[in-house]
């Protein structure tokens, strides 16, 4: 397990180095002055600029500049937003939890819906149910998310009035931000309207989370289906069947657990895809997350924000990726011993 952990850690460090190298080079590639792209200090006076140049060591060679840049990032200094002149780190710490919350709920929905459906399809392999589930998943995968989002608002918010169309929670509730994760903050708060706030926040998250979940869910259907078919084809299942276990016993006791392990390996990969979808969905549902903020920054040509936002978001995705690897390894002893890790 130690070797496994070390290997993941080194992978993480090298990937992060590459990512920072990329974001560092963006400063030179974006139009405008490098130091201003780097710090976002568009209104800086000449004396402040000299200070900034000193802080970022711009007179030295590019390697040292990169090292100082890394130092600033490690210390959490991401510069100022060019558009609003506010501290980017503060903005990101405000917004990232909302995105994490939304993505995790979406991931949960995608797994809870996708995996069982995939299993059912595999059990009913090549029958009508299988074909039906496969065609629906194909359809779900092909639908563009912005269209689906608008359609969901039109149907469920405007026509049926079941769910709200925008925001994280009704503006009436004042929830103090402690962890940034809304649901936890609500439970921690001492508002007399705690439970109203909780149900309101739940109603707000359902629609965007479901819209995000559609595409990953279809992928989980296919993954679950394939891995279940594989498992059902193995010799130990056949042996169990020969022992006289009922079909239900075989599925619940043996097949599901083994099939699930194979799926978990792909969760990390799917998460990147899911966050991309979440960014678009955040815009449609006015969700106060980092995706919407990043897209707005792109509109406003806020280079400092784009750079730091990308860095933080990719870092977050990578961490989730590694976490799923760990979960996979914890559940599957075979993976731990695998000397030629698949990353």
């Amino acid at each position, binding site marked *: 397990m130690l070797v496994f952990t070390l290997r993941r850690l080194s992978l993480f460090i090298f990937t992060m180095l590459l990512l920072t190298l990329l974001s560092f080079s963006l400063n030179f590639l974006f139009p405008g002055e490098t130091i201003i792209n780097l710090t976002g200090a568009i209104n800086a006076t000449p004396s402040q600029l000299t200070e900034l140049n000193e802080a970022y060591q711009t007179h030295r060679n590019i390697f040292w500049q990169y090292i100082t840049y890394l130092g600033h990032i490690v210390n959490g200094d991401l510069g100022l937003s060019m558009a609003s002149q506010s501290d980017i780190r503060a903005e990101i710490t405000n917004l990232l939890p909302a995105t994490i919350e939304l993505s995790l709920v979406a991931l949960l929905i995608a797994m809870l819906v996708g995996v069982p459906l995939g299993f059912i399809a595999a059990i009913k392999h090549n029958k009508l149910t299988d074909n039906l589930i496969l065609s629906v998943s194909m359809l779900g995968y092909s639908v563009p998310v912005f269209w689906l989002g608008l359609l969901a608002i039109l149907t469920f918010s405007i026509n049926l009035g079941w769910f709200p169309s925008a*925001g994280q929670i009704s503006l009436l509730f004042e929830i103090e931000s402690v962890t940034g994760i809304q649901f936890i903050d609500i439970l921690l708060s001492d508002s007399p309207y705690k439970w109203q706030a909780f149900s309101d926040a739940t109603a707000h998250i359902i629609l965007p989370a479901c819209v995000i979940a559609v595409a990953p869910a279809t992928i989980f259907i296919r993954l679950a289906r394939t891995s279940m078919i594989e498992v059902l084809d193995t010799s130990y299942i056949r042996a169990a069947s020969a022992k006289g276990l009922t079909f239900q016993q075989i599925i*619940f006791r043996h097949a599901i657990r083994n099939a699930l392990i194979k799926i978990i390996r792909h969760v990390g990969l799917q998460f990147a895809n899911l966050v991309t979808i979440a960014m678009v969905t955040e815009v449609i549902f006015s969700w106060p997350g980092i995706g919407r903020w990043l897209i707005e920054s792109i509109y406003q040509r806020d280079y400092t924000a784009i750079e730091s936002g990308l860095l933080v978001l990719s870092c977050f995705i990578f961490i989730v990726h590694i976490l799923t690897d760990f979960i996979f390894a914890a559940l599957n002893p075979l993976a731990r011993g695998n000397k030629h890790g698949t990353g």
Partner: protein
Amino acid sequence: MKGVLLMNYIKLMIVSLLSLLLSACNEEGKLSLSERSVIYCAEGSPETFNPQLVTSGTTIDATSNQLYDKLISYQGDGSSLSPALAKSWHVTHEGKKVTFYLRKDVVFHHTGYFTPSRLLNADDVIFSFKRVLDTEHPYHFVSGGNYPFFKNSALSDLIYDIEKINDYTVRFHLTHADNSFLANLAADFSIILSAEYAEQLTKKKTQSDIDTHPIGTGPFKLKEYRVGSLIRFYRHLQYWQKPAYIEQLVFDITPSNTGRLTKLLAKECDVVAYPIAHEKITERDDLSLEEVTALNVGYLGFNTDKAPFDNKLVRRAISYAINKKTLLEAVYQGKAEVANSLLPKTSWAFDESIPKQTFNPVLAKRLLTLAGHSEGFTMDLWIMPVQKLYNPNAMTMAKLIQNDLKRVGITVNIISYEGNSFLQQLKRGEHQSFLFGWSADTPDPDNFFRPILSCSATKTGTNTTFWCNQEYDAIIKKALQTTNINQRKKYYAQAMAILTQEAPLIPIAHSKRYQARGNNVIGDILTPFGAINFSQVSKLNLTKKKKLEPHLPQRIETNIINTGVN
């Protein structure tokens, strides 16, 4: 076995989550927070929380009637005034001295950043006005020192002193008698600030907080403002009138028109400013659409200093050649009334006898021939392509006018200017004709006649027609000196008759202001003049519940009607 356990676990989770949701909905049968609060979807963020500093409608809507009170306020249609912070007043010395007697029970907001130690008194009134009028006042230049309403209405020239008689009596000394003075004091801009709060800020050296962290006497106090996102108000429980019914008022700032519509349809907003898609709203049973003809006028003005518009025959010819009905349909989409003169119907001085302007190209052609322009001519029409309440689409309007005038032989060149350069060039008189408009700050008719067309306004730059008529000026001056309302009405009718004859500008439309709300929200919000007001607003369930509870002690006499709600 583990698989079965897992499934059971998931089932348990779902059941417990659902029961949690259900229990949340039926919590003790008491009114939920949303039943005690109102969410208003506003069209933009306020620039400041002090209406003295601005003229923008968005800011006034968010601040004036919510956070502050005035000395006096308008009653009904705006033709008469009612007491507010001043319980009575009287005018002496031929209208040159106006004395106000203040209420003794007015409490300022108690908030997280200020705790008042005393009630409202004369110092607060003097502070509020001196700050604006006295350029040497320590607070005058805090937040820029620009007070557009007071500058435009020439209050700083009119008031030469404000005297404190005793703690609850204040006297204004005027340079001359002016009937619009009281109306100006009742305008949304003439609010009363707290002098005690200002003192405290001076000590802390954070003077500019007076306009960003407001303290007033109004029905609501500011709880929280997130720029570009929301304004949260709490009810002011010690309000000197009956406290507001709703506990919380939230302005959800939604600049996108479709965003506001969606939030209305999805019931995320109780009340929505300037809604689009009116048919969609009216076809729903649970929503209603309200309108009020605002005190404004969109017009086509001429530079009467320049040929050929120095000839009133030409000006009148054009007034007959323009088909206002088409303009109203195409530009305002029916959201306006045809303007026959400067004043809209909602003004108390509106005169029914003013003849309706007809569309008559034949007559127009005849007048042009009479003026010696039988061959027609070419003219420049200046427009500002920015959406305004009085003219939502100046470009379309200009093109339609171009088309209409072509039929009588006049070629129109449309010249479009962006923002400020338009106003500056107009003031310099470089134009021939222009599309413009006026939104009144007070319901006093003088606010239309004087700034747009008087001789003195040609100098201050609000009269860009440069039309100066002594007879007209004399009439509007006389109208200000009499207190008899019928007499004033007669004077203004005479002034309007002169305008019809002279046609220095062609009034086109009075646009309406729209608002949509869910039917569970009751009480008036829109006022025909000035800012919205939430002090009388309630929710259906809230009032039902209220009736069961013992009534709160009535704090004011019933004959006082709150600011202009009708």
